[in-house]
């Protein structure tokens, strides 16, 4: 998950829980330009490969009775498809590839990030903010394109008493613009927190007396992180669906 080098050199109880998130150029040099191949790039590429491997090569045999890989691919497809259909309704289904892209990227990046010594791309705000902003902009633009100014009805709660409505409108407006913030920070924060906690426990392993406890704690946290990796992808996706539903049907 990170470089262990200087913790060992310094010796003693030193925590570097955030070192695992450092972005380094892969092929020498210190400068990170726009096109530099970094470890983040590598793990994004591996994420793409994993997705292609699962969804394209897994389903390449088109078997009626699916193999293991094909079952997983179909399971992922069915899972996201059902989520989109349930939350956004029939007219949201045409945005399914977009949502599937988000889901597969996040879930694969999260799981690949759990491989020891790997790099977790989704732990970086740069990544999650872009993901969340993409959703936010898509949803906002889509809302105005589909409903015109009727999309503003999302902020005008017609079921509330009239004097309350302006106040509610302000609250709704704020909560609407906080969406991308919480959307992105939730994902990156969860992933980062889990990895940092594992790293802290790993730091305790330097003390011989505590190390068995530490190993057990790391194992337990790792199990929790596997769960979190999936649940955060699920939550990100389902919130995307919810926002999309708001854009398609602003009048609840």
């Amino acid at each position, binding site marked *: 998950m990170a470089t262990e080098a200087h913790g060992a050199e310094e010796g003693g109880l030193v925590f570097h829980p955030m070192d695992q998130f450092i972005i380094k150029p892969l092929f020498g040099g210190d400068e990170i330009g726009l096109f530099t191949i970094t470890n983040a790039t590598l793990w994004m590429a591996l994420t793409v490969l994993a997705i292609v491997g699962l969804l394209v090569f897994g389903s390449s045999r088109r078997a009626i009775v699916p193999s293991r890989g094909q079952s997983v691919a179909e399971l992922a497809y069915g899972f996201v498809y059902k989520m989109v259909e349930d939350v956004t309704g029939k007219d949201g289904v045409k945005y399914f590839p977009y949502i599937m892209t988000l889901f597969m990227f996040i879930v694969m990046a999260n799981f690949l990030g759990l491989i020891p010594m790997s790099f977790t791309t989704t732990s970086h705000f740069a990544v999650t903010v872009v993901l969340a902003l993409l959703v936010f902009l898509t949803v906002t633009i889509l809302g105005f394109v589909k409903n015109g100014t009727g999309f503003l009805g999302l902020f005008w709660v017609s079921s509330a008493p009239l004097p309350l409505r302006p106040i509610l409108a302000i609250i709704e407006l704020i909560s609407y613009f906080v969406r991308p913030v*919480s959307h992105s*920070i939730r994902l990156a924060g*969860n992933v980062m927190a889990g990895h940092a906690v594992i790293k802290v426990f790993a730091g305790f392993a330097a003390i011989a007396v505590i190390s068995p406890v530490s190993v057990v704690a790391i194992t337990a946290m790792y199990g929790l992180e596997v769960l979190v990796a999936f649940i955060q992808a699920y939550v990100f996706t389902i919130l995307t669906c919810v926002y999309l539903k708001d854009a398609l049907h602003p009048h609840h």
Partner: protein
Amino acid sequence: MEGQLAHIGAGLAAIGSGAAAIGVGNVAGNFLAGALRNPSAAASQTATLFIGIAFAEALGIFSFLVALLLMFAV
């Protein structure tokens, strides 16, 4: 001195994680109570459950973020 104060602040901010834990526990517990009363309706509400947990948890993550900022960025 300032750095040490920041560390104390980080510890205080971490209390927020506990508050988020209470919130998540509330959501899950109430869901379970409702689901046991009416198990047939439970399956259709799991998405709502996760959304609720996500919202409750996000605030805890914010406090965690504040702690991290105090630890490493101040």
